[in-house]
């Protein structure tokens, strides 16, 4: 399964998950047969999914035990509702007792599910606290972002809490989606139909250049798998550093510097200018070339 050259972007959450982990190693928790669907969508009399848009379970990755969640972006934009959020929270809770080598979150979500908005917002804040608890226990959490909905809203925050953020060029990461900004602030602020601009502001190459993503990979399930293995093994040999005052003061300085450096920037090109000799070539660069020019090892 993992040998097939399948696009991560085009695959369903289930295909991504199965293709990422070792063959026949996945055990699903709270599987579709249990029918834990959203009672709130049911009240609105609109379609339900038997897994409420997220698959959670245990697997091995190159033999290492992991816990893994995959959001289905095509089911209400992968948005987090009460059941959906509780499944991921439960998985993170299980990490505290099982102590896997890593927890992998295949994020594909616009954030809070508006049909159950209050439950979704509270669930994401619980998710945030759960991720921090898992990290405090010394277990690394990785976010893998390459789905059609990217990682936005609260899930954009959760993604940036993770110890590693793996993105494909097609993956997108941010807080407010371009459509939301355009609706409220106007098309001059952000033209959401300008796909090239959207990718230059939120896409994987921009996020990798700013340092918001730690890895950029090709849009292929095996590429995500191989980097996930490398990262899992990296944290086996080099334990997770705890978040302490010094590391956060350092981060504070870095973020202050970023704001000053790109004080007026509104387009990824302005950021690539600082990093690449030919910024206009960045969108067409292969991932390998991009990583080489950025001076990083994949």
């Amino acid at each position: 399964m993992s040998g097939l050259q399948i696009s991560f972007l085009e695959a369903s959450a289930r295909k991504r998950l199965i293709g990422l982990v070792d063959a026949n190693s996945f055990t699903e928790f709270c599987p579709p047969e249990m029918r834990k669907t959203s009672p709130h969508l049911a009240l609105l009399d609109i379609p339900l999914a038997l897994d409420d848009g997220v698959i959670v379970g245990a697997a091995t990755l190159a033999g290492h035990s992991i816990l893994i969640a995959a959001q289905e972006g095509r089911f209400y934009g992968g948005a987090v509702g009460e059941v959906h959020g509780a499944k991921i929270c439960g998985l993170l809770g299980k990490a505290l007792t099982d102590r896997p080598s890593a927890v992998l979150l295949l994020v594909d979500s616009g954030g809070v599910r508006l049909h159950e908005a209050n439950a979704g917002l509270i669930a994401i804040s619980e998710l945030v606290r759960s991720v921090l608890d898992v990290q405090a226990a010394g277990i690394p959490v990785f976010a893998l972002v390459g789905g059609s909905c990217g990682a936005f809203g609260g899930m954009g925050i959760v993604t940036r809490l993770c110890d590693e953020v793996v993105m494909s060029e097609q993956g997108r990461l941010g807080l407010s989606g371009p459509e939301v900004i355009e609706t409220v602030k106007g098309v001059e602020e952000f033209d959401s139909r300008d796909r090239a601009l959207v990718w230059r502001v939120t896409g994987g190459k921009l996020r990798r250049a700013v340092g918001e993503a730690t890895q950029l990979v090709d849009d292929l399930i095996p590429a995500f798998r191989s980097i996930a293995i490398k990262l899992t093994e990296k944290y086996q040999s080099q334990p997770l550093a705890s978040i302490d005052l010094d590391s956060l003061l350092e981060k504070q300085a870095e973020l202050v510097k970023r704001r000053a450096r790109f004080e007026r920037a509104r387009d990824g090109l302005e950021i690539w200018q600082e990093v690449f000799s030919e910024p206009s070539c960045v969108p067409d660069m292969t991932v390998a070339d991009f990583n080489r020019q950025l001076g990083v090892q994949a």
Partner: protein
Amino acid sequence: MEKFTLALPSSSPPLEVIRSTICGVVSSGNLEILVESNPKSDVCTLVVNTSAHGFREIWEAVLHDFALRHPAGGLGFTINDAGATPAVVSLRLDQAFEICCGEAK
């Protein structure tokens, strides 16, 4: 949502279904199908939840056709549909059956 259940006669599959299978995604024009085992080996049960109202006759035709074409006795199908066309429904049912019983052929 419109909901109905059908129990259709169908011949037994070549192998007992050990693990349930899920196929497809609930999104506009698409559907998910969960296949589980059911105790009656000569009956195929189908539970349909669809967002498209008033198409029960067409659904029944598609499902009858499926139960005739495949040995789906002893199988239970749960379908969550968000407005898929009959062709997509038929294709997904074939896929679900294939994943579930394909190896036994």
